[in-house]
């Protein structure tokens, strides 16, 4: 560069600062005195809400953020308390966590692993967060979970549905409340058997990445177990936009069911286009052609509009459930924001409360103590019925909802209806099930 303008005074100033920095008397190893990373100092404790605020899942991320802010209000005793009133554990009393007021910082994951980790690192290194929660994809969840394990803070996963999060990539410091691909398939299949019978031929379109594969593998395995035949599994590029060349061959393949293992915008496009190709109006093998979307979310349902009418799928939670916990949460969320919460929002809200509760029961913010308090913890009143966090893989086990696109919606939020609440026993599996094997929780890491 031609212009450097490097003055002697500037050098001396910089030099002075440097030498002052080197001669400092107070020379400490980071957080040596507390025994774990980011031990809360003073009368506050900080949570990190790491959600997608830009990119395709921005709306979902913002809904998570709303729920997290609501959770913080409830923990600090503002508002009506929401699920704190229905939660089976009663140690949280609206005075913060262990007497410390809860504060939070927010970050943007952009649904990219690198960016999500950068954002989480900033929360840990700069803001001193003791716990990170949120997120809207499995790639990001696994990346951030790994980071939290290394850094010695707790990660309470948001929306992540891939088997790997609590399978191959499970970590001692990470916990998942959301259900997974295996549970979706296990919950959905009995209902599908009931409505579509056992003699069906399924054609799978699968998003070509790890979540898509694990969803397809789970669906194929469980539907084949009831006698269905898997005609073909076609991998489609993520973000393809136009799926016509994948949908066109379906009708002449001899299949009478189309399973769309897509999520988000891909699902909205592939479903819309499949309907435009007339699949739902056709008859194959003497049966009505049907479409299945294994994983639903409210935003996808809104994006797909009338196309989802009569299409089956599964969800972790829905605001239309009738239990007291759901009612309490939906009421406080709806009153604050004017519309019902999404499933992703519910998961993030519950995760935040569960963390706070575990800290309180453990009597310490130390991640190892929190892990101990959460492992094999049984609770109720959080909207999913009796639930437990399995210690062997940190996966939450609870009932799963089988949903169907509402045939005659009465309002903008009435897009999905609950067909069946599949009991927890039906979706349970061994922690070393082949689809989940190869993982190792490792030891809990309290950090510094």
């Amino acid at each position, binding site marked *: 560069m031609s212009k450097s303008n*490097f003055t002697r005074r500037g050098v001396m100033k910089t030099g002075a600062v440097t030498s002052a920095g080197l001669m400092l008397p107070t020379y400490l190893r980071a957080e040596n005195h507390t025994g774990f990373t980011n031990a809360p100092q003073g009368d506050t404790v900080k949570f990190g809400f790491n959600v997608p605020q830009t990119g395709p899942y921005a709306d979902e991320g913002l809904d998570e953020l709303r729920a997290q802010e609501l959770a913080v209000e409830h923990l600090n005793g503002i508002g009506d308390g929401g699920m704190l009133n229905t939660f089976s554990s009663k140690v949280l009393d609206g005075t913060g966590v262990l007497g410390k007021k809860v504060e939070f910082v927010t970050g943007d994951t952009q649904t990219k692993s690198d960016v999500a980790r950068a954002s989480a690192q900033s929360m840990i290194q700069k803001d001193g967060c003791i716990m990170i929660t949120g997120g809207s994809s499995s790639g990001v969840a696994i990346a951030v979970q790994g980071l939290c394990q290394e850094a010695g803070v707790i990660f309470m996963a948001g929306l992540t549905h891939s088997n790997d999060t609590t399978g191959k990539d499970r970590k001692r410091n990470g916990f998942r409340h959301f259900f997974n691909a295996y549970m979706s398939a296990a919950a959905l299949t009995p209902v599908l058997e009931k409505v579509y019978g056992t003699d069906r031929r399924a054609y799978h379109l699968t998003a070509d*990445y790890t979540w898509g594969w694990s969803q397809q593998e789970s669906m194929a395995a469980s539907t084949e177990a009831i006698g269905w035949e898997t005609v073909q599994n076609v991998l489609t590029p993520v973000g393809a936009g136009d799926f016509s060349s994948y949908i066109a061959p379906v009708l002449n393949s001899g299949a009478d069911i189309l399973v769309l293992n897509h999520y988000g915008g891909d699902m909205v496009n592939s479903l819309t286009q499949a309907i435009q190709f007339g699949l739902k109006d056709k008859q194959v093998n003497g049966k009505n052609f049907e479409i299945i979307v294994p994983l639903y979310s409210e935003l996808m349902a809104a994006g797909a509009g009338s196309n989802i009418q009569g299409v089956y799928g599964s969800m972790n939670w829905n605001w239309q459930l009738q239990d007291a916990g759901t009612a309490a949460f939906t009421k406080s969320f709806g009153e604050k924001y004017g519309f019902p919460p999404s499933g992703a929002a519910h998961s993030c809200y519950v995760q935040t409360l569960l963390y706070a509760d575990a800290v309180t029961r453990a009597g310490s913010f130390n991640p190892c103590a929190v892990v101990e308090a959460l492992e094999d913890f049984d609770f109720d009143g959080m909207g999913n019925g009796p639930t437990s966090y399995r210690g062997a893989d940190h996966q939450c086990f609870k009932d799963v909802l089988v949903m169907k696109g509402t045939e005659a919606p009465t309002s903008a939020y009435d897009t999905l209806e609950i067909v069946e609440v599949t009991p927890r026993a039906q979706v349970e599996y061994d922690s070393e099930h082949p689809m989940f094997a190869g993982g190792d929780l490792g030891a809990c890491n309290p950090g510094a």
Partner: protein
Amino acid sequence: MLGLNSRDFKLFAIVCIMALVAPILLNPFPTDSALGQSFNAGYPALMQRFVIFGILAIGFNILFGLTGYLSFGHAAFLGMGSYAAVWMFKLLSYNVLPAIVLSVIVAGIFAVVIGYVSLRRSGIYFSILTLAFAQMSYQLAYSVFTPITNGETGLQVYNADPQILMSPGDPTSPHLFGITMNGQTQVDMGGWSFVFQNGYYLAALFLIASFYLSIRIFRSPMGLMLRAIKSNQTRMSYVGLNTKPYMLAAFVISGMYAGLAGGLLAAMDPLTGAERMFWTASGEIVVMAILGGVGTLIGPVLGAGLIKYLENIVSKINDGILHSWFSFLPDWLDNLLVTVIHPFIGKGWHLTLGLLFMAVVIFLPGGLVQGGQKIMGLFGRNKKSDAKDGAKTPAE
């Protein structure tokens, strides 16, 4: 000194000092103050990104700044470097040295192949060729090559990996012969607290070395040759000179810089994913260079720093933080200001980014470096002659 003329040496010295005292310079506000919590950038993860993306931009500038060839697929080399480094962690041990060496070599090999093919065309045809190679790498890494890249989940080290050179007492995170990258020293001084991290300093040393090498290349006969090619390639070939080897050399060096950056990213944080190779990542590198000032030595580093700063700092500001800044104001003014600023922060940080791009190109055609020159021209008393001089030689 060091084979540099006095002006270059001054610039080099500034970069050295800035890189070494960054943990202090980037924390201008007390840690617990409202401004400090929002605007301080002196924490290890962000400082690492500043210097690593600085290296990447310096390398890109050797190609684009000197030859004018706009590669739109440079992120591919970054991604390949990262994959190579993580594989070294998985196979050998967490020592970063072999990882970084291999990442440079791998990126270099791919750069030879891609460069050889792409450099047969010029202008936008060259750009699209590099873009096509990078997009193919991304698509394949995301899906078909999952056994090598671990697909969307991202490649990471598992406890079950061989790590054949790992002995029982070794650190379980990246280290340089026992010095762990995430090891750090925290110094508290009044309201300030400064963190000096080993990993950051390793990356900073690489930045200094890269910067030095880049000055030497700019001032070397080869640099001169490349600039001659930029001004008129046809003339060079009429003179009877084969320009191809020079171009390829520039491309490969530039690719190796990207590989080094990729290797360092993995060394700081042993995980990598395909999205590092996506076209937007390549576009970001181009934007860094143009934003800072193409063809200037320091410009791309500034551009890289600015973009990473915005990405990490502005995206984290939310309404709550805004209210805490303006809490001293009357309520109505507080709310008004928050409403006005709200669209530009947090989820709207992209808007700030886009507006900034436009503003810089419209008002500072020479990038941030030109902005700096203008400011110096305003404040310096006898700097007028210098400013003119600078305007005459923009290609430095």
